[in-house]
């Protein structure tokens, strides 16, 4: 909500940290004459422009598409990943969600597996490595069947789609008190496990992706559901249940099959 001039004056408490090796601290900035129609990142742009004019080091944050799909922006705003509104990313958050005179606290994602690179940007390459461990269907380019030779019931396709909407932003990890990456990991596993194309590698995939997730130092899931509540794409906890089911199936009943796949080719 804005003041009589239709603008807002805000105080920002921003986490500044030159790199992972140096301790960080909060710095205070004023954001003045902010239009409620600005996006949160545009508000930070305005602050940064004034910082540059004073020849100081601007606040570093990750961002790119600015329309909620690339997953590059992050920011822990007033104690919540991507700020106070549901089902959006920071770049889709607008200043009309705040009140004139408010103090806003801005922090990076905090998780052992996401070391700070600078200020508000963290290293999320652990997510890429989890995907590289098995988040794919092993087909080469060319030589595949006609697309309509693989009929998929609409409900299954829609459910797989819901899992596939993950933008790999890391809000689930940031929201979790254990810094668990199970919502993220399970989304890809579930998408591919639901589809007929994903069946041949289903049990091998779940094991290798979970193993990589553990190796990266993410915590375990204790079913508090904060990840689901904060996910900008509303990925559900059902995905974690699906992953656990497949993981235990692989361990208990399909060990031989998986073993043969891993070693026999």
């Amino acid at each position: 909500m804005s003041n009589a001039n239709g603008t807002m004056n805000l105080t920002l408490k921003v986490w500044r940290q030159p790199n992972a090796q140096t301790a960080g601290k909060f710095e205070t900035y004023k954001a003045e004459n902010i239009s409620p129609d600005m996006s949160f990142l545009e508000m930070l742009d305005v602050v940064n422009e004034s910082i540059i004019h004073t020849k100081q080091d601007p606040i570093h944050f990750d961002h790119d598409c600015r329309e909620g799909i690339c997953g590059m922006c992050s920011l822990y705003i007033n104690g919540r990943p991507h700020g106070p509104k549901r089902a959006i990313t920071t770049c889709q958050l607008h200043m009309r969600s705040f009140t004139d005179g408010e103090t806003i606290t801005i922090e990076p994602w905090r998780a052992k597996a996401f070391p700070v690179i600078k200020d508000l940007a963290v290293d999320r390459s652990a997510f890429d490595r989890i995907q590289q461990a098995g988040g794919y269907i092993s087909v080469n380019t060319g030589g595949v069947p006609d697309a309509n030779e693989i009929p998929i019931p609409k409900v299954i396709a829609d459910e797989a789609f819901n899992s596939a909407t993950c933008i790999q932003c890391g809000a689930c990890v940031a929201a979790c008190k254990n810094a668990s990456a199970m919502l993220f990991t399970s989304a890809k596993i579930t998408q591919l496990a639901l589809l007929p194309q994903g069946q041949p590698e289903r049990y091998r995939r779940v094991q290798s992706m979970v193993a990589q997730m553990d190796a990266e130092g993410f915590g375990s899931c204790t079913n508090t559901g904060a990840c689901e509540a904060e996910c900008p794409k509303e990925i559900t906890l059902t995905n974690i249940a699906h992953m656990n089911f497949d993981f235990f199936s692989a361990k208990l009943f399909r060990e031989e099959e998986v073993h043969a796949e891993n070693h026999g080719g």
Partner: protein
Amino acid sequence: MILDAKIPQGPLAEKWSKHKFNLKLVNPANKRKYNVIVVGTGLAGASAAASLAELGYNVTAFCFQDSPRRAHSIAAQGGINAAKNYRNDGDSVYRLFYDTIKGGDYRAREGNVYRLAEVSVNIIDQCVAQGVPFAREYGGLLDNRSFGGAQVSRTFYARGQTGQQLLLGAYSALNRQIHEGKVKMYTRTEMLDVVVVDGQAKGIVTRNLKTGEIETHAGHAVLLCTGGYSNVFYLSTNAAGSNVTAAWRAHKRGALFANPCYTQIHPTCIPVTGTHQSKLTLMSESLRNDGRVWAPKTVEVAQRLRKGEIRIEDVKEEDRDYFLERKYPSFGNLVPRDVASRNAKEMVDDGRGVGGSGIAVFLDFRDAIERLGEDAVKAKYGNLFDMYYQITDENPYKQPMRIYPAVHYTMGGLWVDYNLSTNVPGLYALGEANFSDHGANRLGASALMQGLADGYFVIPYTLGDYLATIGPKPVDTTHPAFAQTKKEVEAHVARLLALKGNKTTTEYHRELGHIMWEYCGMARTEEGLKKARVLIQELKDDFWKNAIVVGKNEEINNALERAGRVADFIELGALMVEDALHRRESCGGHFRLESQTEEGEALRHDDEYAYVAAWEFKGENQPEELHKEELVFENVKLTQRSYK
């Protein structure tokens, strides 16, 4: 310089098959002796890197984002065309070819466009095999929707995020090759130059965006898959980081830049709200399937609306001008993008714009909601409606959207031949970074098609021919050209860091954007372009005197990154203006006010301008030299486009 497009001889439908047969092959055991550098990991880059690695080549890939999955292809919404004819509605490879050539206002090569249409069907198969969750019907088969510039339904889609789903498919294929050790991936790394050894591209110079380290990388070939340059307008629908630097530096190393003035203005974007705006948001053209575009019939009604004296729902049916339906009865709201955009601009220029600024027209779903029900509309466009609501705080289920055109895509780019090779041997350009397939205007759902066609199905064949020709002799960075190019990059960075004036590079970027939008945007004139030429030169001089760049090289330094990109955009802007100035005709996205039909449509001059304008860099502050590649049309008859 004679530009040889290397279009194969023979009938259109046989060109690609014959060409593939005639291309040299690299034997399987030799493939691992080659290193290929791929810059950019969007649809073109990720698909190329994965496909080449699958063949056995060693690939080194680069992106400036923190993950290859974030390249801006991710943001494409509407869909991807393919001539599958699953609807039995008369589609064919030839029809997709024809629609694309016509949509591009006859300024693309027949051979390239036909090949694009031909491989389009393979793309859908490939993506489905990867697990891309396209929309399906209850019978389990794939669904289609229609898009602008076509009268068949050939667009495959994945809700409103087709780009993300296709890119995640390509990213998964790329990940598999990273896992196999066939692709070495560098993230948060920006390419700053191409290394040319004895006339051939043999590597690149990069800057590590985390440490500032400037490094050289060698390869037998370099593939630029670095996207378009819409951000030259400052405000565009591109991602904040999208830039022209890789392509521009390649241009300055000898690669020709073709048709730079061909830019696409997308009709359905959310209008600008204020000077703070950092980007514009596009809403998929698919909205025009069910949304009806209108403006008040009279200036008086428009004024009353703008002042809030009347509400939108109070505007009577007879006071609404559904101008696209009125002017183009057969295509209606689904006319191509350039036509839809220009008409919206006409309404605004006429004083009939809506919204607080008066710079918008309506896109109305009232009738669709009445006809189909709110649930059906929600199922089709729900995420787009949410996005609109989020940004504007207005509920599109209750009141029409306000839309206005915004820069969205650039048809121009590095000149490439049929093999996707630039005129510098070993240097290739794929996807939006090249100029090749869309002529003067791109049809909706064709960008994803082209990016993936280039990466999955063209370059794996054509690159082999070049590699077989040069042989597998190892390459490394010991040639003095590497050290020399690196030195030049370091000098450029130092020059930027020495800028200690009082204006931020964002301020320069915004000014450049104003100039480009005003004089080289939706409508262009001789007089305006000449003015822009002067203004850009002044801006450039001022930039190198008064810009401020804080910080140092050996750290994360956004200000430095931005400065380099803005400096390149300024130079590109100047070239775009020259290109627009020399092309004294209207075609597609390039509309010269001096060249229009009596009905106000783009008037081409085929006898004079049926060529590709390819510009050669001749040195700093020197005029660029124009080379012409004549376009030969053997199959389609050049006609005045009509969508009436």
